[in-house]
């Protein structure tokens, strides 16, 4: 790409301008945050507010984004690839040092806590990649999910097997030998084992078949109904936003749109630019 090159008029028809041409194109981070500022949900159960941060000494990936989820509700983050969604999740989970902003859980500032400490506080996270213990069996993966639990975990394991029957058949197999979708199921299962108060999922449905995806979303709703807060990133955005209480569109590490799931689904600009029409 050269200076004179305009990606919008490239005959390859790229219409996701926000990444390649910040400040040009139809969507402006600044504009949107101006007209529809990210609400200050200081009282929300889980809040990552005004987060600025990046990897190592590199540039900031997050540029002041705010994400919040109420108790027992589902918040969904969508956005183009490389927007910083996973980075935002990691920031909320403390796997990334924030340069500005704070993370609060149930009113308590947890910005400085280590990921482990957050686990102890009842947060669970399924990363987007490398989210299983490949050399351990499926069942051991689940057990590790319940590492901090001291009660009997048999029941929960059975629940997971009910949810993902294929895993029961493969309980003694190293998770690394599973198919892509099966691994994803193990990953989600592992997080559910924690019996968390906050469940964070980074693209839980990537690579799972439609039937399992439906099951998964059902289950997520069910979990939320038990009072567990859910924060997830999804590229299967339409399905996800349908069940979302709150949706965030993240672009270049900032909030581009925020609203209820329904509102975002109804917004033609959001549909066209981020949800595939």
């Amino acid at each position, binding site marked *: *790409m*050269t200076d004179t090159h305009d990606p919008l008029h490239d005959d390859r028809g790229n219409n996701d301008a926000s990444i*390649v041409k910040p400040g040009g194109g139809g969507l402006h981070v600044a504009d949107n945050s101006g007209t529809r500022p990210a609400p200050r949900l200081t009282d929300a159960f889980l809040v990552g507010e005004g987060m600025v941060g990046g990897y190592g000494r590199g*540039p900031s990936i997050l540029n002041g984004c705010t994400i919040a989820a109420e108790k027992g509700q589902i918040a969904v983050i969508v956005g183009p690839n490389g927007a910083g969604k996973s980075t935002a999740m990691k920031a909320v989970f403390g796997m990334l040092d924030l340069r500005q902003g704070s993370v609060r859980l149930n009113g308590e500032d947890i910005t400085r806590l280590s990921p482990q400490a957050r686990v102890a506080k009842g947060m669970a996270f399924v990363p987007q990649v490398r989210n299983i213990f490949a050399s351990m069996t499926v069942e051991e993966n689940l057990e590790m999910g319940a590492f901090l639990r001291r009660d009997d975990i048999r029941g929960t394991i059975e629940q997971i097997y009910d949810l993902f029957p294929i895993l029961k058949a493969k309980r003694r197999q190293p998770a690394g030998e599973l198919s892509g979708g099966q691994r994803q199921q193990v990953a989600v299962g592992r997080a559910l084992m924690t019996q968390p108060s906050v469940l964070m999922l980074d693209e839980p449905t990537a690579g799972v078949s439609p039937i399992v995806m439906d099951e998964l979303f059902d289950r997520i709703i069910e979990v939320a109904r038990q009072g567990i807060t859910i924060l997830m990133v999804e590229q299967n955005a339409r399905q996800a936003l349908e069940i979302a209480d709150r949706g965030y569109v993240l672009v270049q590490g900032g909030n581009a749109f925020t609203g209820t799931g329904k509102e975002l689904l109804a917004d033609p600009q959001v549909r066209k630019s981020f949800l595939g029409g």
Partner: protein
Amino acid sequence: MTTLPDATLAKPIARPDHLRAVLLYAGMAALIAVTGAAMGWNYALTVVNMGLISAIMALGVNLQWGFAGLFNVGVMGFVALGGLATVLVATPPQPEAWSAGGLRVIAGLALGALTVVALVVLRGRMTAGRGRALALVVVGVLGFLAARWVLDPGVLAVEAVNPSVSGNLGGLGLPVLLAWPAGGLLAAGAAWIIGKTALGLRSDYLAIATLGIAEIILAVMKNEDWLARGVKNVVGLPAPVPQEIALQTDPAFVARAASLGLSAVDASTLWVKVLYLGLFAVVLAGLLLLAQLALKSPWGRMMRAIRDNEVAAEAMGKDVTARHLQIFVLGSALCGIAGAMMVTLDGQLTPGSYQPLRYTFLIWVMVIVGGSGNNWGAVLGGFLIWWLWVIVEPVGNALFGALATVLPPDSPIASHLQDASAHMRLLTMGLVLLLMLRFSPRGLIPER
């Protein structure tokens, strides 16, 4: 040139930090200079010469590890083979030994080689199964016994010829400089055979396999006296440069030395070392240039891709096995060349002196501390670690000497310290190594 759309999104484009490299090399030169001033130039040049050789070994390991991710821990074997080549090329032949049993030895070896070929062919022709396994075992054992039956009497006969000073078949009697490329070739040939069999192994499994192969090579060199006298050593190898004694008795040289204000002894020892330095530097410069050109080319990129992800590289049409073999052979050849140079410098081949710690792991330390994946780093590592390896000894001694002077000379602690001072070498080496790794974990001149 691509312009980056947004300064906040763009990472600074990684460029090798040339300034850092230049400074580090300058620092190395300063270290050598200080050494020369403090310990004498003969000492400094001795260190530099071996440093040059070490740098070539490090370059070879860097090719294999830094470029292609091959964990070769058999460096010692290839270095030793290079040394063997020097004996085989530069020593005079022993006609008496040849007539005593030379042909028989050759025939025995040929029979052995034939057996191996038969095994390979058989393995390819027959279908896998118990029948094939049986056939392979039978052919292998019979071939081995037959080869031994032919070989052993020949070996006995050869080794009986004047065992205290020769007892081997001797070499070709060619100029010793030819031994350097020959050392490379011999090591390359061995590497080809080894690579064909073992390169399917990954990471530490390849490491231990190559380690084992190096031990096997050494076992052969130590115990097959007909080849190069085994543990009885070969001394007095010809040198490519004039001898100090000859120079000291050469009136012209003595006169010229005197005109420079040097004694004949000093001038001759220095001059010989400078000559070696010139030869070694030319070889190193040539090899470094070739390695550098290779690294910066699409070939180097392909190698890095293979190193990063073999599966993907294979799917992108790169013949990983063939490339691994290629670079394994090249890297080993460098080690062979360096081995031949080292034996030439020493003037003797002593198989008992090849130890993995010294000729494998120390070389690895050079590469990692210098910066794997970076040729300049590997070469710097070669110099620096070698310098350290020899300098910690006098430094350790001096340290303990200073300590001991504070104590009463006949106290038991003082004598304990005296004996312990030798281990200062180990301690200092370890400490400095850890410190360097600590402050530049990716090497002094990292890959990028």
